[in-house]
C-alpha cells in the first residue's frame, strides 16, 4: 500500500544541463505508471532517484507522505527488475528467492511460507523454475524468477527498467502479458521504464512521456493520443506516426496544397486565421474523397496480421501515412481529405497545439 509522490525533483550531473528538470509526479497506490521517451530523456535517472540509487539536487520524494529523499535504498522496500535479470548465477531459482531472508536473518519458517505463497501466485509451472540454475533457463524464465524474487520480499514499490528488452519479439509479447497480470494480481505500485511506446501503453495505467529531463505529459493513452499537450507528444505517441502538414486558414476555409476545404463552423471559429499546421493520424484520412487532395503513393504496406494496409506517400511535399483496407488496390495516386472531427491543429512554428479532437464517442 504505497503512494509515491515526486515533488519538484531536479538533478544535473554536470551542474549545468539538467538531467531532470522540475519533475512532479504522483503514482497512486497499486497504479502502474510507465515512463517512455527517447534515449537520454532522463527516464532511467528518474527511476534511480525513486529507488534511492541517485539523489536529487532539489525536491523531495514521498512514500505515503513520508519524506524518503535522504533514506537509503535498502530501507525503502523497493523491488527492482532490470533488463539483464541480475540473478545470482550459482543459486537455483529457490536460492534466488531465499537470498533476502538469509541476508536479513529471517526465520526459515517465514522464508518457506513466503516462497510457497509467491510460487503459488506465479502460476502452475513456476515450481519447476525454482529447481533450476539461471544458465539453464530462457530469458523469459529468468525474468520470471527475477520478478518472483521481488515479490517474495513484499515490496512497497516495483521499479522496472526495460525488463523485457532483451527477449525476442515473440517471447516479449508473452512475457509482457505475464508481467501485466502479476502487477494486476499483486496491485503493487509500479514505475515501468521503457523506450518502446507500445510497451509503455500496454503496461501503464498512465504513461509519462519524457524529453530532455522533463515530463511533457502524463495521462492515459486516450489522453495522450486524442489530447496531446504539444507537437512532440502528438508525434511520439502513435505508430505509424501522425502526419503534419502546413496549411492556411481563411474565411472558415482551409487550404492545403492546392486544395481548399470548408471547415465545420465550430472548428473554423475556434482557429486563428493564417498559417497553421494540420495533424492527421493514419486512421484520420478519408480515402478516395470527392474533394480530395492528391496523395502520391510511395508504397502500400499490407499487413495481413492486422487485416489492414498503410499507404505511405507524399502530399504537397509532406510525408503522409493513411490507413486503408487490406485489399486496397495498388495505385500511384489517390484523393484524400482529412476527417475534420479527428484532425489536430498546431501553430505554424514551434510545438504549440491549437486544437485537439478529444476522445471520440463510439457508442
Amino acid at each position, binding site marked *: 500500500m504505497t503512494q509515491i509522490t515526486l515533488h519538484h525533483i531536479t538533478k544535473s550531473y554536470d551542474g549545468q544541463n539538467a538531467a531532470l528538470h522540475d519533475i512532479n509526479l504522483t503514482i497512486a497506490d497499486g497504479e502502474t505508471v510507465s515512463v517512455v521517451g527517447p534515449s537520454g530523456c532522463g527516464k532511467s535517472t528518474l527511476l534511480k532517484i525513486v529507488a534511492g540509487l541517485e539523489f536529487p539536487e532539489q525536491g523531495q520524494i514521498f512514500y505515503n507522505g513520508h519524506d524518503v529523499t535522504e533514506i537509503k535504498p535498502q530501507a525503502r522496500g523497493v523491488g527492482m527488475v532490470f533488463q539483464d535479470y541480475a540473478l545470482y548465477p550459482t543459486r537455483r531459482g529457490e536460492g534466488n528467492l531465499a537470498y533476502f531472508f538469509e541476508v536479513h536473518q529471517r526465520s526459515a519458517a517465514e522464508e518457506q511460507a513466503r516462497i510457497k505463497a509467491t510460487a503459488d501466485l506465479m502460476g502452475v509451472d513456476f515450481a519447476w523454475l525454482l529447481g533450476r540454475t539461471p544458465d539453464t533457463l530462457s530469458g523469459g524464465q529468468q525474468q520470471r524468477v527475477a520478478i518472483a524474487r521481488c515479490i517474495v520480499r513484499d515490496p512497497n514499490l516495483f521499479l522496472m527498467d526495460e525488463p523485457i528488452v532483451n527477449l525476442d519479439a515473440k517471447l516479449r509479447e508473452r512475457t509482457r502479458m505475464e508481467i501485466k497480470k502479476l502487477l494486476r494480481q499483486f496491485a503493487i505500485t509500479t514505475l515501468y521504464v521503457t523506450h518502446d511506446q507500445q510497451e509503455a501503453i500496454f503496461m501503464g495505467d498512465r504513461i509519462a512521456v519524457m524529453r530532455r529531463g522533463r515530463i511533457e505529459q502524463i495521462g492515459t493513452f486516450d489522453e495522450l493520443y486524442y489530447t496531446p499537450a504539444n507537437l512532440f507528444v502528438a508525434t511520439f505517441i502513435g505508430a505509424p506516426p501522425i502526419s503534419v502538414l502546413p496549411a492556411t486558414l481563411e474565411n472558415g476555409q482551409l487550404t492545403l496544397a492546392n486544395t481548399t476545404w470548408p471547415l465545420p463552423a465550430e472548428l473554423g471559429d475556434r482557429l486563428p486565421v493564417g498559417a497553421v499546421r494540420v495533424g492527421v493520424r493514419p486512421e484520420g484520412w478519408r480515402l478516395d474523397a470527392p474533394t480530395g487532395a492528391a496523395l502520391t503513393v510511395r508504397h502500400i504496406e499490407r499487413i*495481413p496480421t492486422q487485416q489492414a494496409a498503410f499507404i505511405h506517400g507524399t502530399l504537397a511535399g509532406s510525408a503522409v501515412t493513411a490507413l486503408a483496407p487490406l485489399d486496397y488496390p495498388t495505385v500511384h495516386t489517390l484523393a484524400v481529405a482529412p476527417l475534420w472531427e479527428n484532425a489536430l491543429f498546431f501553430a505554424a512554428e514551434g510545438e504549440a497545439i491549437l486544437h485537439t479532437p478529444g476522445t471520440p464517442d463510439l457508442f
Partner: protein
Amino acid sequence: MAAITVKQLTKRYGDKLAVDHIDFALREGEFLAMVGPSGCGKTTSLRMIAGLEPVTAGEIRFGERLVNDIRPRARNVAMVFQDYAVFPHLTVFENIAYGLRARGAPRSVIAERVPAAAKTFQIDPLLGRKPRQLSGGERQRVALARAYVRDAEVYLYDEPLSNLDAQLRHAAREDILALHQQKGRPSLYVTHDQSEAMALGDRIAVMRAGRIEQLDTGSALYERPYNLFVAQFIGTPGINLFDVRLRVEGEQIWADATVFRLRLPDEVQIKVRAQVGQTVKLGIRPEDFHVPKRAPFPVSDENTVHGIVSVIEPAATGCAAYLSTVREPSQDFAATFKLRLPATYLGKEIPLAVDTRRVHLFDPATEQSLLTR
C-alpha cells in the same frame, strides 16, 4: 532462372546442426525475409550466403555460379548489420565510400555517388561527422547508404532494425524498401520480428531448429499455415489455441472446448470427418472474433464465445483486447477489433462472435494442419 539458389545447405557446429539441409530460391528483384526465434539458424544461413561462414554441405549459387568457395569480397554482396558496423575513425563520407574505394572505384564515381546516397537517406548534412556524433538511427542510415552506393549482386540484411526505437523503426523500414526498389536486386533479410518480416518480405521463410517450416507470401502464411509452429509464430497477438473434442450432433460436427462450443462450417467439416471423436487443437485468430452487432456473418449461440475483458491495448487499426473465458477452466485469449473498445468494458463480460469459416485445426500429435496441404 533464380537469382540465388540454395540447395541442401547445411551448417554443423560439432554435433549441433545449426542449419539442416535447407532449400530455397530467390527470384530476381525479390525481397525474401527469414524469420524465426533466436537460434533457429537464420543468421547462420545469411552468413553462409555472404561467405562469412564456411558451408558444411550443400550448394549456394548466384545465377549459375557456384559460390561456396568464393571469398566474401569476390561474391559482390552488400550487407547491413544489426550493430551498423560503421568504422568509428572514419567520417560519414568515408564510411559510405568505403566499399567503393575497397573495390577500386574511380574518384569521380565516389564524388558523385556518396553525396547522392547521403541525400537519399537524409544524412547529407552529416557527411563530415564521425559516428560517435550520430544517433543510432543516423548510424543505421549511414550503413544503408553504404549498401546503396554499391552495385552489388545481392543485398543481405542481418536484423538491421533491432537496435532502433519503435518510432525510428517505421521510418527505417521505408528506407530499406526504398533501397530495395532502387536497386531491384535480390535481397535477403533476417529478423526475429514477424511483423517486420510481414511488412518487408515479398515472401517469408519461417525457420525453426535449422529447418524452413514454410516459405510463402505473408498472407498465405497467415491464412494457411502448414503447422502449429507457423500458425503461432506469425501474427501478433498470436493465434488463440483451444483443445477441442470434435463431436457429431444433429449430423453436424462441433468443436467442443467445454468452456464454449462452435459448429464448424460445412467446408471445414468435410476435412475433419476422420478426426470425429478425437481431441484436436482449434486455432482462432484474434481478428476473427467480432463484436456481434458488427459481425459480417449471422450470429447465434452456435458461434458465440463469452469472455471477461482484462486488458485493452489501443492500436492504430483499432485495439486488442485480452480476455479470459467465462467458465472454468478459464483460459486467456486475445481479440482485435477495428474500433477502440472503451475502457468502461474492463472487467466486464462480453459476447464475441467467431468467424468459423476462418478457424484452424491441428493434429495435436504431428502438429500438422488438418485444413491445409
